[in-house]
């Protein structure tokens, strides 16, 4: 395709991407370099239904003047990125200087909010992504081999977890694992332990979240693999049969190599999606045991009466950097394949 024709086709979506993706990211990046103006405080007598006290309030007029002058706030450079709620450079230096052994270093770093969230986010990404690919592949193979009449309904039901809104899906599961819920009560009966609660212990909460993640995303892998399975060359499969390949050998040596590019595609999508995991943390009320980077952003924007925009922006930028690092190996591989073909 000529470059000119290519541009003619691509420019509308390019424009949309610049307007709705690139520019907002630039603005978030800009925001992350600023913090709020120094607050001008004044002390005065304040009264209410429960009596009067002398207390502090913000001098709103003085603050308005400051904001008029510099609407973005005070320039802080990369200070927000380095502070204790993000990369925590000072804290980590201090931890290395004052800890006795590696175990203590690890525990203390894991206690910093950013790293606590990062470790769960990474664990979720690297456990859920491969399981989704494997499970999706198995479902696709199974569905592909069932009688035609059943295929429609089976595909529909296999897709349901993906169709359900993530928040709703996690809430449904959350109530099912409640000690009064179907799964929770069943587990208690199975293990004969009335105090067993999937919501209480960190390990069980993590496992629950992983299971939820696989449940929610497997249909996506399934659909992609199922579509791919329809295009597996039948003559290769037949000649493999003639050569005496068993069913498993046909899958192993014909189907899997053929579907490999699709697996790369799913891995790419899932790495991105899983690194941004958020809804299940809210849905499962899991914040006591597991936080993610996206949850930190949400918390900065929603928890306090006044949102911490700079902090949220810095975490957002760090998340983008994280996604890029995660995708690099996959992208590099794609790029190499592309060059080899060309």
């Amino acid at each position, binding site marked *: 395709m000529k470059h000119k024709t290519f541009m003619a086709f691509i420019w509308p979506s390019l424009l949309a991407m610049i307007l709705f993706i690139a520019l907002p990211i630039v603005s978030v990046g800009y925001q992350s370099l600023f913090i709020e103006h120094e607050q001008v405080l004044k002390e005065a007598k*304040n009264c209410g*239904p429960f009596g009067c006290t002398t207390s502090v309030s913000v001098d709103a007029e003085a603050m308005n003047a400051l904001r008029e002058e510099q609407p973005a706030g005070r320039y802080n450079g990369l200070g927000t990125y380095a502070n204790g709620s993000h990369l925590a450079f000072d804290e980590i230096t201090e931890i290395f200087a004052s800890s006795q052994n590696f175990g203590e270093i690890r525990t203390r770093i894991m206690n910093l909010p950013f790293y606590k969230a990062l470790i769960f986010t990474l664990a979720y990404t690297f456990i859920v992504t491969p399981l989704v690919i494997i499970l999706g592949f198995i479902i696709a193979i199974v569905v592909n081999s069932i009688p035609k009449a059943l295929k429609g309904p089976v595909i529909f039901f296999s897709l349901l977890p993906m169709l359900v809104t993530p928040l709703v899906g996690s809430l449904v599961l959350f109530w099912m694992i409640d000690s*009064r819920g179907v799964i929770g009560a069943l587990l208690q009966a199975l293990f004969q332990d009335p105090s067993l*609660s999937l919501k209480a212990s960190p390990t069980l909460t993590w496992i629950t979240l992983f299971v939820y993640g696989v449940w929610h995303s497997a249909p996506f892998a399934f659909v992609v693999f199922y579509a791919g399975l329809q295009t597996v060359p039948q003559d290769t499969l037949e000649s493999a049969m003639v050569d005496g390949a068993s069913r498993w050998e046909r899958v192993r040596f014909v189907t899997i190599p053929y579907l490999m590019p699709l697996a790369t595609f799913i891995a790419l999508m899932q790495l991105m999606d899983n690194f941004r995991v958020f809804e299940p943390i809210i849905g499962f*009320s899991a914040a006591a045991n597991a936080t993610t980077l996206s949850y930190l952003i949400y*918390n900065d924007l929603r928890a306090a*009466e*006044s949102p*911490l925009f700079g902090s949220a922006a810095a975490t957002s930028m760090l998340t983008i950097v994280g996604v890029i690092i995660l995708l690099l190996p996959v992208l590099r591989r794609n790029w190499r394949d592309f060059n080899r073909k060309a």
Partner: protein
Amino acid sequence: MTTFFKTSVAAIALMASASLANADCGIEKGSVRILSNDFTALRVIADWAEKCATGSVTVTRNQTQEHKNIQTPALTTNPASYTVAMVASNSIVPLLNDDLIRPLDDLVAKYGQQLNDSQKIVVDGKIMAIAFMANSQQLFYRDDILAEHGLTPPTTYAEFFAAAEKLRAAGVMATPVSSNFKPGWNVAAEFVNTYLGTGADFFAPGTAALALDHDAAVEVLDNMKTMTEYMSADWATYDSNAQKPVWEAGEAALSIAWGSIAGSYIAEDNPSPEIAKHTSFAAAPTIGDHGIPAVALWWDGFTIAKNISDEDAEASFRAMMNGISGDMLAENQEAAVWLIDGYEPSKTSAGVLANLQGGARPYPMLPYMGLLHTALGDNLAEFLQGKESADQALADTAAAYNTAAKEAGFLN
């Protein structure tokens, strides 16, 4: 004939109620746009403010639990999207910080004769909000179960735990206690409650520097941890709404919960009428020998936006005066602990009023209190789960608060 008679009576009644519904608030013209949280008492007030609507006065409302997140952007625009923002002790702070609400002294002088002095929220000499109800957490208890085991409603946490222990030992309930300990806003509110009960302050006077009294804070944390030992293993997922079904299932006998939902616990349409009948309320227990109910007092009130025309401001204030009028009160005595003249306490208000009389302290209306509240909410769960020490939890809280306060410009 009878049909004709009935229809005409019905028609007259309809007309009468229609004219009643449009009470004459004396407003000539203007637009009233209300933003508020969503619970019974606020709905009632908005209903009564809406009665001021006429051909030339429009009254609209948006009642949502998201109000706190909407209010700042919505009142920043000029003209503001809402003319009235209903707020509480904490949610007024961002509006004050950003200078988004107007002083009400003139309007109070002209149209606010019905108000008590205690309803006027005065900041720096100016009336910035009008309070209409008080709220706080309180003790909920099952009077039948306590009486059966020879227990009186606990007034201190020592008695509270003794009662819980007795109920557990007697095999009545494995986890007789319930409270809002969900990490985030809820668990932080419980810490603030109990900490206020020690009589200590959060900040160095006049500054944003965190100055928790270490001994008091550790005492509070230990107290909270003891509570979790008598609570369901799922305590970390219980907020105010989630613990109501637990109570209605008869799985708890002692609970620290919000006064504003007390009414729904004993309402006639409660799904467990037997439990509802035996649910009683009292002041929150005191902690240690401090003798102060370990609970924060809150007020709910309304503010008027700054970025609106004076005409709309006047219309809004007068509509809200109708919203919190004596007539409204007469019909809704039970809906809240009203600060309005003519309020007669009922069963549901017993706890909040007992807190007030017991000398409970108000939730601090400080510009940086929200940051501390968030820091507490994010850093107490690990201690309560037994994963870290109280000192570590307090150190983490202080670190989180200091970082946030620096970013918000309160600390250097």
